[in-house]
C-alpha cells in the first residue's frame, strides 16, 4: 500500500511507543499508544507566512482554536522540517497582542479609541473620496489625459494572499492612485 510520509510517521510512531513500553517491562493492556491530543482535531494544510521558501505546515484546530502547528511531512520542500519562525506559527494565531477591534486615533490625541467597522469604513471611504477629489488631475500640463490622484499613496503587502494582492492592485488603480509601492522594492 502506498503511504504518504505523514501516515508512515503516524503509524510507526504509534507502534514504537507501545513496543518500547512493553519492552521496558510495563504491562501495557492494549497495544495501542495513547491517542495524540490532536487526534480529534480538524486538520488543515497551510504554507508558512514568513520567508519565501514556502514550507508546508499542518494546523490542528479544535473548537475554532488552533492547538498545534507542525511541519507537513508530505511537502516536497521542507519534508516536515520548520525553522524557528514557522515552528512558532501557533503563537501568531493565539496571541493577546493580536488586534481584535477597530481603533482610531484622533488628531493630537495620545490614545486609541475603539470603533465599529461600520463607522470606520464610512469615515475612511469619505476621506478617500475627499483626498481623491481634491488632488485629482485629469490632464497634465501638456494636455495628456492622465486621470490620476496625486494626494493618495498605497503601501503593502508582501504577505497578502495572491487573490488579495490582485484585489488591492485593482482597487488602487480603480481609485487612480499612482503612488504605489511595497516590500518588493525595498
Amino acid at each position, binding site marked *: 500500500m502506498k503511504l504518504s510520509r505523514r501516515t508512515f510517521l503516524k503509524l510507526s510512531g504509534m507502534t514504537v511507543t507501545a513496543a518500547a513500553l512493553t519492552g521496558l517491562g510495563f504491562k501495557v493492556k492494549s497495544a495501542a499508544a495513547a491517542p495524540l491530543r490532536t487526534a480529534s482535531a480538524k486538520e488543515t494544510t497551510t*504554507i508558512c507566512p514568513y520567508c519565501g521558501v514556502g514550507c508546508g505546515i499542518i494546523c490542528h484546530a479544535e473548537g475554532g482554536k488552533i492547538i498545534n502547528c507542525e511541519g507537513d511531512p508530505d511537502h516536497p520542500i521542507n519534508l516536515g522540517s520548520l525553522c524557528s519562525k514557522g515552528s512558532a506559527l501557533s503563537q501568531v494565531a493565539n496571541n493577546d497582542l493580536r488586534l481584535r477591534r477597530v481603533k482610531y486615533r484622533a488628531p493630537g490625541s495620545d490614545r486609541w479609541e475603539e470603533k465599529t467597522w461600520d463607522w470606520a469604513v464610512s469615515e475612511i471611504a469619505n476621506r478617500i473620496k475627499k483626498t481623491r477629489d481634491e488632488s485629482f488631475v485629469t490632464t497634465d500640463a501638456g494636455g495628456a489625459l492622465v486621470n490620476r490622484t496625486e494626494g493618495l499613496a498605497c503601501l*503593502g503587502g508582501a504577505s497578502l494572499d495572491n487573490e488579495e494582492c490582485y484585489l488591492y492592485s485593482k482597487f488602487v488603480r480603480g481609485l487612480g492612485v499612482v503612488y504605489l509601492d511595497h516590500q518588493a522594492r525595498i
Partner: protein
Amino acid sequence: MTNHWVDLKNTDCALIMGSNAAENHPMSFKWLLQARDTRGAKILNVDPRFTRTSQVSDLYAPIRPGTDIVFLGGMVNYALENNLYFREYVAEYTNGSFIISSQYGFSDGLFAGYDEVKRAYDKTKWAYELDGKGVPRRDKTLSHPRCAFQLLKKHYERYDADTVSRITGCPKDKFLDIAAAFCATGAKNKTGTILYAMGTTQHTVGTQNVRAFSVLQMLLGNIGRPGGGINALRGESNVQGSTDAALLYHLLPGYLAVPTSDTPALAGWLDKITPKTNDADSVNYWKNTPKFAVSLLKAWYGDAATAGNEFGFCWLPKPQAGKNYSHISMFEDMYAGKLKGLILLGQNPAVAGPNAGKERKALAKLDWMVAVDLWETDTSVFWKAPGVDPKDISTEVFLLPAAASVEKEGSISNSGRWMQWRYAAAPPPGEARTDAAVLDLILTKLKSLYAGSTDPKDQGLLNLTWNYGSGHEPDPHLVAKEINGYDLSTGKMLANFTKLLDNGTTSCGNWLYSGSYTEDGNMAARRDPSDPSSLGLFPKWSWCWPVNRRIIYNRCSCDPSGQPWDPDRAPFRYDASTQAWVSYDVPDFVATVPPQKSAASPFIMRVEGVACMFGNTLNEGPFPEHYEPYESPLTNVMSGQQINPVVQFWGEADNARGTPEQFPYIATTYRVTEHWQAGAMTRNLPWLAELMPEVFVELSPQLAQEKGISNGDTVKLVSARGEIDVKACVTPRFQPFQIDGKTYHVVGMPWHFGFNGYVTGGPSKDKSYAANQLTAHIGDGNTTIPEYKVFLCDVRKVT
C-alpha cells in the same frame, strides 16, 4: 528564481553571495547539504561577515560591503583568462556573438552617450549593428573585435586578481579559490547555482550586482539547467505573488510596463511596450503583449470595456513620464506635504523604511492614515514614538484588525514561483477581517458615495468589476478564476495564456497566472508528490508560473541538436527516431519544431531570443562596472566616477550624506533567523522574543580594543541621519579590511527592532532600536531600491 528550492540538490557548486541562506532561508540547506552528500557539491560563501552560512560552507571569502561587482568581475575575468567558460553555450545561447555599434565605447568609468546634466545615458550608443534585414549581425566564432564577447573580455581585463583583492579587501588566495571552484562549473556536464538576496540588491548598484551574476552564469553555461540558474531567495512568503500582481507604481499585473502621461492612448501604449524584431528565429513571446493587456482591461472593466472606448484604457491612472513614485520618492513627497492620505496593507515603514526617522516625520504630515494589520505596528503608533509629543501630530489614524494567514483561504507564490493554495484553520480573533474583506467594504462604500456621478474622473471607479460572491468576504476561488481568465464567449476558464486574444473576447487578471485555475480545477491546490525524473521537479505539486514550467530557459539544458549537456540531469532529450522530445518539465521552447530551430530562441521572452551578456537596456550601461557606495571611506580606483553616474539624489533635509571624517566606519544591516522583516510578526511572539530579545551590533575585537569596548557594553551607533543605543557583540566574525595600507572596520546589526511590541530590541520604552534610523534616502539606478547594505557610521562608547 529561474530554478526552484528542491533543484538545489542537483548542483555541483553553490555560490551564496549577498545572502545568509542558512540563517534566513534555512530550508535551502536541506537541499544544498544533500547536493554535497550525494554529488560532492561545494558550497561557497562570500560575505562581509562570517555568518551561519559561512560556517557550513566549504569556502568563505570576506568582501568589503559594496564591492560585489569587483569580485564578480574578477570571476568573469578568471573564467575568460583560464578558458573555463562554456564556449558553445555562449556562442549559441547568448548575445555574446552579437556585433555592437561602433558608437559604443567605455572610458574612465563611463560608457558612450553619458549626459552629465541629466545623469542619464543615450542608450542608442549601445545598439546592435544590424544587417540589411534589420537583424543583429553576429559572429559565432566570437572573434570580431566588436562582438559582445570580445567587448566583455576587454571590459573585465581590468578586474585582475590583484585589483580584486585591493578593492574588496579579500585576500587574493581566497578570491582565487572561490573563482576556481565556481568557474569549474563551466564544464559542459557541470552546473553551478547562485543564491542571492538583499545583500546583492540593496545597493546603489544593486541591479548591476544581479547583472554580474547573470553575465557569469551565461559565461559558464549554467542557466536553464538543473542545479544551475540565478536564484533570488525572496524574503516574504508572497513577495513573489505581490510583485507578479504589480503592487508597484511602474507595472501592471504580469509585468506590463505601466502606461504613463507619454502614452495616454491604448494604441500608442501597446506600440511602445510591445517588443518587435526582424529576426524570424526569435520567438519574442512579449509580442503577445496586446493580448495580455486587453484581457487585463476586460477583467477590470468588464462589459464597460469595449473596442469603442479602448477597453477602458483611459480610466487607468497614468503616472507622469519620468517621475519616480517609488518608496523613497513617496516619502520625500509626503515629507514635503504633498501627500494627504496613506493606506498600508501589512507594511511597517517606521522600522523597515530607509532613513526611518525622516519617514516617521513624513507620516506626521499626512492628514490621515489607514493601517490594516495583525498587530499594533510601530508605524501605526508613530504619533507616540519615542521623542514625539502626540499633541504635535494631527494625523488621524485608523487601525483595522486583520486576519492571519491561517485564518483565511487563498494562495501564495514562493521564491520558486510555486503558487500554493492554503486553507483557514480557525476564524480570525475578535472582529478581525481578511484584507480582502477590508478592500471590499471600502470599495462598496466608495461606489455608493460616487453612485450616479457623471464626472468622467469617476467612471473608472464605478465601472471597476467587483463580483466575488455575496457578503463582504470575496470568495478566493472567484478571484483566482478571474486572475486565470475566461473565454468571454463561453464563460469557461481559459486553459492558459496561449488562449488570450486582444479583441475583447477574453479576460485575464494576470496572464502569467493563466493556467492556474482552469476547467480542470484549482491547480495550485494539487498535492501529488510524484517526481518521475527524480530531479525534484514535482510537476503535480501545486502549480508554478509560467504554465507550470519548473526550470525556466530549459532549452539550454540541451545542445542545439537536442542532446542534454549532462545525461545524468536531463529534463529534456530529443529523440531523433520519433522526432519528439522526451520531457520531464514543461518546455520553455517550441517543442514542435526541429531542435536546431528552437535552439535559436532559447530565451523566448527576450526580443533577441538569446540571453543578454551585453545588457543594453539598463540605465548604467551594458556591463556591470564598479562604483563606490554613496557613503564610502575609499576613492574609486577603477575610474574617476566615484558613485553610480545615474543614481538620483533626494533632498538633503534630514538626509545628510556622511563623510568618512565624521563617520569612519562602514556599517551594514542584516537579519536573524528568529525575526522577520520589520518585526511585528516575530517580536510579538513569546517564543521568538525569548530566543532573540535584543538588538546588538557586531564589531571586531580589533575595533573593540581600539575603542575600549567590551562585549555587552552599550554603545551609540551614529550616522549622518540618526543614532541608536545598542549592545556591543564583540566577535571575530567581522575582520577589518586592509586596503592600500590602511585599516577599514565594518560593523553590522539586525534591523528587525523598533519601538513598539512585546519586545522592542532593548530595555528602554523611550528609545527606538530601529537600525534604519541610520540609513539614507538613496537608491539603485534602475529600481531605487534603497542602499541599506552599506553606509558610514561612528561607534561611540556610552560611559
